[in-house]
């Protein structure tokens, strides 16, 4: 254990959020709370049809309305934008064609909301309708009209990856089984509605954007691109953000539209989307159909896996290519499987575009896989824990698809939830209708290769100290409620050996803070945490030099801890932190130290096409047991309790880690039990918080969290991610528990009462047929 880690260990405690008081007192200002009394009101005109050629768009009547200050349309932005430089095929407002119902077509800035709304009603829009495709199957039909002219078969991307000898693997298996599993599309449903406040200064030709973004740097780039502005004239500020979960992990159309409006109006525009518009903006987890085949020997060893995955991606590319690559890559890296074949299809459809959502790409395949493992274990007579233990990995290692695994705490996760849930004593002995289910999952601690490759470090943090002795950490990392600013404060204060109260964190303002790629792929703790430690170490070494000068000692003899500097433990010469800072500032002035973090090339994935996706410095691992009660008359499933263990390397802040695990398990459970989007000919039938069923406190189970610390060799203080890894094991643990409770195998998510009843009826029919056959023979 190095010196920094030792000190950190000694002082570790449960740290509330450094911005928590603002949140609980209502002082925290989110985008919609910012003063906008002088701002114009922005509103978006959206396509009433799912697919069509634009014949006429006439905004003249709207423009003539008193109080309308600016109107923008697709004509005002000729640059497509998007996530991947190779797949930008979306315009902020449609040009030539509309591809989903609700797609932005034009926008208005007016003096008040009522005027803006009346202006929308005056917009004339004529479309020649084209056939709409609402399933991947319909979109892929040979005679289907192309949604994008350059994408034959309406296929955004297909992936075919084979690692190892799959044929040989299946030949060696004693049991080969296959499942077809379907998972509904879900939505992030973060509670804060999307909003943007943009100010354009016509004199300096500068633009200031405040938005509900998780990725302010990418927003900055796309604003410059779409508005054809110099990047240096743009400033992006992230106010408090009310949750993300991936909803804001790509630049969203309304953000660019608001900027276009502000520039057209030569002023300030506030855009607040409604809940329905939030659902239309979407960018969440796609509906996914999967066929998964697994080979197993009679002693429970996995020999080969084959997966065919089809994602209905919606109308535009977004993160689609990454999502379909993740689904294949994350078949690896959790169990020892010698051969894996993956075929992925990302399909366009005339629906709101999908994107990244917590557990990006891995959740649905993990679900299908974990359900299949349980069914095969049952057939071979193995306990669910036993079969998984037979297939564990051993770190450090490299997977068949070239992912590095440096720490692996899954075995301990299994031990912890097995014991905590009383599995051995209870499994098979529960009363009818009650059951236990197990599943495992994993996730990356930050994508090792950034989407936008510039050669810069993966993360940069500055720490500043001035005459007042206060330390200000500057980071571009977007705190969206996960507590990343608190993590930075802990990393800096513990490395410097000062109380956390001495550290302020300023985050997410492009004019002040260093660039950061943003809050996605659970990268912040690992990457920004390491950069923060590096910055604090660099500052500490400057302070130690100053202390050594003052104490007339050698720097290596100076000890810095508990906010003081001394030489040895017995001596009388002790300098306070402020005294050392004053000495350090002599002839220097304000000190700013910098720290960076970069993932080495060997961690950035294989050389095969798409090999960077899934690559990471450290995987988190999770195991969870779900206990359910199933009402066989109504098909209602209630979850009684969940025991979840996560290997997060080291819990820098156990309080925050618990919160992340509870939240991710619960979100996964929601996808398992009730959450589902539904479209009627492209019209969302789910676009409110009443129709989109998010669990309330009344039906949410207690979640018992167990933190496993495998101490990752590269993580900050040994830490890995903690907020996504546990999500994907919730739905399969639920389905496995239902199978255990009432003996039905469910192949569709969510497991709504109608689906459960259907499966129960089918089981009864089967039993009756069986009984009749026996009686007849």
């Amino acid at each position, binding site marked *: 254990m190095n010196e920094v880690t030792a000190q950190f260990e000694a002082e570790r405690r449960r740290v509330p959020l450094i911005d928590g008081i603002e949140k609980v*007192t209502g002082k925290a200002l989110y985008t*919609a709370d910012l003063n906008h009394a002088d701002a114009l009101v922005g509103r978006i005109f959206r396509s009433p049809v799912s697919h069509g050629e634009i014949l006429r768009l006439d905004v003249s009547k709207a423009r003539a309305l008193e109080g309308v200050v600016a109107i923008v349309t697709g004509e005002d932005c000729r640059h497509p934008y998007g996530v991947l430089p190779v797949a930008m095929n979306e315009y902020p407002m449609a040009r030539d064609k509309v591809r989903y119902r609700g797609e932005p077509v034009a926008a208005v800035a007016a003096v008040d909301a009522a005027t803006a709304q009346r202006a929308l009603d005056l917009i004339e829009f004529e479309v020649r309708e084209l056939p709409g495709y609402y399933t991947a199957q319909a979109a892929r039909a040979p005679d289907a009209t192309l949604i994008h002219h350059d994408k034959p078969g309406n296929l955004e991307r297909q992936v075919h990856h084979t690692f190892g000898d799959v044929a040989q693997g299946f030949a060696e298996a004693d049991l080969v089984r296959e499942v077809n599993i379907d998972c509904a599309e879900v939505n992030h*449903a973060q509670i*804060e509605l999307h909003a943007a406040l943009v100010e354009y200064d016509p004199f300096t030709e500068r633009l200031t954007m405040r938005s509900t973004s998780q990725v302010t740097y990418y927003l900055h780039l796309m604003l410059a691109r779409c508005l054809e502005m110099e990047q240096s004239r743009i400033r992006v500020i992230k106010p408090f953000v009310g949750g993300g979960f991936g909803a804001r992990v790509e630049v969203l159309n309304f953000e660019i539209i608001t900027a276009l409006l502000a520039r057209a109006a030569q002023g300030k525009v506030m855009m607040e989307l409604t809940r329905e518009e939030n659902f239309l903006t979407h960018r969440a987890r796609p509906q996914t159909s999967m066929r998964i085949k697994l080979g197993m020997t009679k002693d429970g060893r996995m020999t080969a896996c084959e997966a065919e995955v089809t994602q209905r991606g919606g109308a535009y590319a977004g993160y689609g290519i990454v999502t379909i690559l993740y689904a294949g890559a994350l078949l690896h890296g959790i169990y020892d499987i010698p051969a894996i074949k993956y075929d992925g299809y990302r399909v366009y459809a005339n629906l709101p575009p999908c994107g990244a959502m917590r557990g990006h790409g891995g959740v649905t395949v993990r679900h299908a896989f974990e359900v299949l493992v349980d069914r095969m274990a049952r057939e071979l007579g193995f306990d669910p824990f036993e079969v998984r233990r037979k297939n564990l990995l051993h770190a450090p290692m490299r997977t068949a698809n070239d992912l590095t695994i440096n720490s692996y705490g899954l075995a301990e996760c299994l031990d912890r939830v097995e014991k905590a849930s009383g599995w051995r004593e209870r499994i098979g002995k529960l009363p009818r209708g009650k059951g236990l289910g197990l599943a495992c999952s994993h996730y990356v601690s930050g994508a090792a290769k950034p989407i936008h490759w510039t050669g810069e470090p993966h993360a940069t943090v500055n720490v500043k100290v001035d005459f007042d002795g206060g330390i200000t950490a500057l980071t571009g990392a977007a705190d*969206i*409620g996960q507590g990343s600013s608190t993590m930075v404060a802990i990393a800096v204060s513990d490395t410097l050996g000062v109380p956390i109260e001495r550290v302020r964190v300023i985050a997410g303002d492009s004019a002040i803070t260093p660039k950061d790629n943003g809050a996605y792929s659970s990268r912040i703790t690992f990457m920004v945490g390491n950069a923060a430690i590096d910055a604090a170490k660099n500052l500490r070494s400057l302070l130690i030099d100053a202390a050594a000068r003052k104490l007339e000692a050698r720097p290596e003899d100076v000890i810095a801890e508990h906010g003081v500097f001394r030489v040895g433990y017995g001596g009388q010469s002790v300098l306070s932190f402020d005294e050392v800072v004053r000495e350090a500032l002599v002839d220097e002035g304000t000190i700013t130290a910098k720290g960076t973090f970069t993932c080495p090339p060997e961690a950035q994935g294989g050389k095969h096409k798409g090999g960077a996706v899934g690559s990471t410095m450290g995987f988190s691992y999770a195991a969870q047991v779900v206990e359910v009660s199933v009402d066989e008359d109504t098909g209602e499933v209630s979850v009684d309790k969940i025991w979840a263990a996560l290997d997060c390397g080291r819990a820098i802040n156990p309080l925050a880690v618990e919160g992340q695990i509870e*939240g991710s398990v619960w979100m996964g459970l929601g996808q398992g039990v009730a959450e589902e989007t539904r479209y009627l000919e492209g019209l969302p039938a789910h676009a*409110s918080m009443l129709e989109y069923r998010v669990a309330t406190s*009344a039906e*949410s189970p207690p979640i018992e969290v167990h933190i496993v610390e495998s101490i990752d060799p590269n993580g900050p203080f040994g830490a890995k991610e903690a907020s996504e890894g546990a999500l994907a094991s919730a739905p399969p643990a639920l389905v496995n528990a239902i199978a255990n409770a009432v003996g039905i195998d469910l192949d569709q998510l969510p497991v709504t009462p109608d689906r459960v009843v259907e499966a129960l009826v089918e089981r009864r029919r089967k039993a009756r047929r069986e009984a009749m056959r026996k009686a007849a023979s």
Partner: protein
Amino acid sequence: MSKNPLLPSKELVRLKVNGRWREDAVADNQLLIDYLRDVAGLTGTKMGCDGGECGACTVLVDDRPVLSCLTLAVRCAGRSVETIEGLAAYSRPSALQRAFHEKLGTQCGYCTPGMIMAAEALLRQNPHPNEDEIRGALAGNLCRCTGYVKIIESVQTAAEAAR
């Protein structure tokens, strides 16, 4: 004189907001949430949906939790409205606010004001609720971050502190 149909009629409304009486000309159709945020400048109360689905806009009217996005401001004439800002007397967080902070009952913080007001209403009526009573009282307030685990714990902690 013909009246502009776009301009709703207003009436002078006297109501108490966080312990202080105030008087404003309030449009007939103005929602309480808009009155609080735009007229009184109290942006702690949040809008999370478009009509009574999420609970983020919960405030107290005469000690009872109401959804300010479904309540007309004029209906609060003569009544006492309390928002999240009113719980912190002279900026000292209340027991509930402290508990939500210390126990991480808040993550992104957006549902938090409504959640705390709903919990406040519960504790005023029932100072020592059991877990089921807490879960029931907060069932109209959606949270997307916490899984409610630490929210329940926060309310329990505040109730315990009051013993």
